């Protein structure tokens, strides 16, 4: 497989792949009102004037070109998509050339890399598309040889006639295959027959990332490009009152100093941009700039106020009900064996290693954007709206992303770049410093959970959770602030609820000017801690083994399989009493993950994490090594949020500005992580996020097991338990 670094327009793709020449191109599109994608040849698509959603194109040399319509931010779509195609198309990975697609909602449907959806959203269509192309190639060979199609099969880019051993290269068949119609039905391989899928093939983008040649957003340069840095109001709704640019303009290289606004949900974030012919000068100019902010009338909140408000709101605020059965309130009021606990989680910064940046070139009422962008189609549409352009006049080019985690799906930074480019009438790269990136948000919202449970013998008979915190949906223009948060059970094994007669889940929204948004695994990242800590507390109250307690509430065999595996690999049953083992299981984006953490006390009394076991059930998957890497990475990110970092607010501003105060997990703090993947016939679930939510509870449950101390507030320090 080769990856081509250039971004291509549809026209270039046609040229590049020979779409209109002697090539065989098959794609799919979504007919209006249809639920299913339809497979169609490129020629017919142009006759019918439909835009293809994804293509496979095979040229006369047998080379296969495919479009990668997802961004690559570390999750390995570079590898996974061609692996899927090579399997059913019966070609070698080396024969596949993959190119990035540009953002276009109309062409590709949603391109967002979020919700761990890269594979989940498209694998069945890709399998079918590849198998259809293969069948057409086999068919055209059979016709040429005048033999039965059933006597032929495909292997490594060739069609072979079994009885005679005759062999034809795909390249020689493309012209004939282009004349056939795609089969109405194709049979897909069973996972046990896979030759390429399920194999831990090395990622093809790795060599680009070990020799410095991978081009991230910050590395991209376009001719005539200027550099901008922006001094933005550090308070979330503040404005620019005035600025003095004399000293900034005196810095050699500085070309413009202009006020700028970018859209953050329903508000404009105001700042002053310093534009120079090189980045260093722009940064020096910014230092010399004097801005007077207007923060009049805006709330200068602090972390203390926010959390006091949230905690109070359990008794004073109006809870918006999301899900209920029976009467949890009455069950709790009258129960004899009951438990209440409150769990607190912090605001967090995404802090991708590559700080935000974006290039924009606004010219003749057209806009072209280059950058590390998770959702190119959203950026195309939303930035077009904000700039008063037609979506077709906006082109979005993706580079490699130095991390995304949800943050690079937001449109503020491309919008701001577009505004600056338009104002100065030149292409410009806007670079955010680490401090900008860490203090401006949007942040992962901090949430507080009030959980109440009732035991009937050793079983849960009532489960009640009230959640206080910001509802991301409430930030959008015109949002109904009385709407409940439908994400408050994410992460929770909802199958538990089938065996619980009374439950209630509700939220009391906190309205705050702090912008918040998705952070790897979204609300599950905090929900998982509360729910799986509380289940552990209930298991302890029921005097049961925490895994056995969970198992008895789950009827579905899939969960039992996962629990059995977890028990087996972690040596759960042979552990001694209070040896420091903790477990948690969560479900997120259709994948179930169980984790066991083992802790011990070092001689200095500090808690040490000895080992982590994770069992991932993501259903159908492509590349086990990529799945494992994503589980490892999710655990490390969860570790940071559990015991290392948090974003605090003071006087209306974020306190932590760089890695000296927002402390990251380091190599010496991460123990061995042993990952197992379940093999089953379930549908594909997410891979990039679902291993994050269970970690924190598994850790604090382990600490309880070792020390008897229950931790209900994160982050906490392992040195001071």
């Amino acid at each position, binding site marked *: 497989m080769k990856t081509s670094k250039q971004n291509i327009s549809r026209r270039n793709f046609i040229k590049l792949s020979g779409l209109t020449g002697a090539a065989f191109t098959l794609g799919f599109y979504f007919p209006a009102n249809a639920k299913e994608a339809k497979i169609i040849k490129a020629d017919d698509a142009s006759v019918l004037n439909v835009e293809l959603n994804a293509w496979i194109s095979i040229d006369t040399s047998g080379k296969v070109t495919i479009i990668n319509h997802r961004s690559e931010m570390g999750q390995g779509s570079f590898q996974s998509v061609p692996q899927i195609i090579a399997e059913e198309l019966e070609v070698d990975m080396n024969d596949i050339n993959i190119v990035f697609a540009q953002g276009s909602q109309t062409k590709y449907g949603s391109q967002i890399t979020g919700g761990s959806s890269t594979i989940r959203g498209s694998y069945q269509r890709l399998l079918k598309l590849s198998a259809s192309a293969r069948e057409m190639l086999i068919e055209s060979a059979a016709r040429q040889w005048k033999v039965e199609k059933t006597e032929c099969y495909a292997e490594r880019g060739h069609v072979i006639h079994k009885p005679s051993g005759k062999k034809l290269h795909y390249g020689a068949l493309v012209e004939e295959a282009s004349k056939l119609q795609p089969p109405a039905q194709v049979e897909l391989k069973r996972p046990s027959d896979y030759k390429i899928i399920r194999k831990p093939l090395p990622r093809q983008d790795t060599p680009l990332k070990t020799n410095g040649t991978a081009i991230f957003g910050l590395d991209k340069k376009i001719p005539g490009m200027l550099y901008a840095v922006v001094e933005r109001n550090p308070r979330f709704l503040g404005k620019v009152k005035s600025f003095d640019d004399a000293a900034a303009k005196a810095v050699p290289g500085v070309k413009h100093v202009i006020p700028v606004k970018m859209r953050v949900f329903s508000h404009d974030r105001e700042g002053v941009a310093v534009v120079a012919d090189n980045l260093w000068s722009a940064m020096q100019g910014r230092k010399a700039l004097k801005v007077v902010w207007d923060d009049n009338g805006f709330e200068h909140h602090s972390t203390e106020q926010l959390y006091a408000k949230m905690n109070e709101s359990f008794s004073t605020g109006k809870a918006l009900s999301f899900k209920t059965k029976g009467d949890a309130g009455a069950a709790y009021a009258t129960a004899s064996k009951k438990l209440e606990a409150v769990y607190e989680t912090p605001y967090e910064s995404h802090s991708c290693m590559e700080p935000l940046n974006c290039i924009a070139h606004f010219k003749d009422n057209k806009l072209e954007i280059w950058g590390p962008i998770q959702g190119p189609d959203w950026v195309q549409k939303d930035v077009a709206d904000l700039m008063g352009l037609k979506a077709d006049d906006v082109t979005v080019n993706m580079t490699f992303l130095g991390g995304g985690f949800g943050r690079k799906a937001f449109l503020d930074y491309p919008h701001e770049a577009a505004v600056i480019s338009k104002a100065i009438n030149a292409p410009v790269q806007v670079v955010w410093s680490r401090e900008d990136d860490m203090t401006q948000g949007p942040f992962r919202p901090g949430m507080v959970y009030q959980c109440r449970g009732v035991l009937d013998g050793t079983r849960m008979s009532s489960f009640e959770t009230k959640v206080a915190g910001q509802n991301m949906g409430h930030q959008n223009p015109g949002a109904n602030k009385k709407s409940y948060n439908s994400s408050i059970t994410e992460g929770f094994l909802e199958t538990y609820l089938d065996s619980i007669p009374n439950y209630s889940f509700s939220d009391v929204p906190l309205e705050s000017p702090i912008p918040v948004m998705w952070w790897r695994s979204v609300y599950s990242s905090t929900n998982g801690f509360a729910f799986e800590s509380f289940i552990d507390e209930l298991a302890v109250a029921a005097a049961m083994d925490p895994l056995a307690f969970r198992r008895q509430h789950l009827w579905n065999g899939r969960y039992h399989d996962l629990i059995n595996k977890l028990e087996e690999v972690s040596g759960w049953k042979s552990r001694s009493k209070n040896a420091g083992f903790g477990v948690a299981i969560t479900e997120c984006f259709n994948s179930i993950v169980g984790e066991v953490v083992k802790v011990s006390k070092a001689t200095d009394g500090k808690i040490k994490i000895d080992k982590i076991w994770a069992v991932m059930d993501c259903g159908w998957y492509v590349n086990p*090594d990529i799945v494992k890497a994503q589980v490892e990475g999710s655990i490390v990110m969860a570790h940071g949020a559990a015991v290392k970092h948090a974003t605090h607010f003071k006087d209306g501003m974020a306190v932590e500005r760089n890695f000296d105060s927002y402390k990251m997990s380091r*190599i010496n703090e991460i123990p061995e992580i042993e990952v197992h993947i379940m093999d089953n016939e379930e549908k594909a679930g997410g891979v990039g996020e679902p291993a994050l939510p269970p970690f924190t509870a598994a850790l604090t449950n382990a600490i309880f097991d070792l020390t008897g101390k229950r931790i209900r507030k994160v982050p906490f320090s392992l040195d001071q338990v």
Partner: protein
Amino acid sequence: MASITLKINNKEVSVDVDPKMPLLWVLRDVAGLTGTKYGCGISQCGACTVHLDGNPMRSCILPVSAAANKSITTIEGLSDDNSHPVQQAWITEQVPQCGYCQSGQIMAAAALIKRIPQPTDKDIDSAMQGHICRCGTYTRIRKAIKTASLISTQKASKG
């Protein structure tokens, strides 16, 4: 502005820049070597690590004037074909996820195995704990350093 002669990856390069400009930005924006990354600018993350006379150095806080007449090696100069034992090990162990931190990680690891050909876990901890990987590739980095050490001993015994 001042004219400064730098020796980058065994080539002499003359740059005309503010002598206070950190080496990082000279490498990236003047010399066009974008493999060295910006992550924090305050010596906290290691993304900008290069070798200065063979020693790992944070280029984000090093004024370019301090690098004059010294030999600078960036990721691009470690090898041009991924043949350095650390690069090979990084590919074998499939370390990178997003990849952004990896130039710095690789430069630090290369300096480590040069100094200590068979590093212990403790050696790895102390050499690498200044390097942040937000994607969480730490367990693989540890493994890859051990693999790199193996590869380079094999190379040495062959060569």
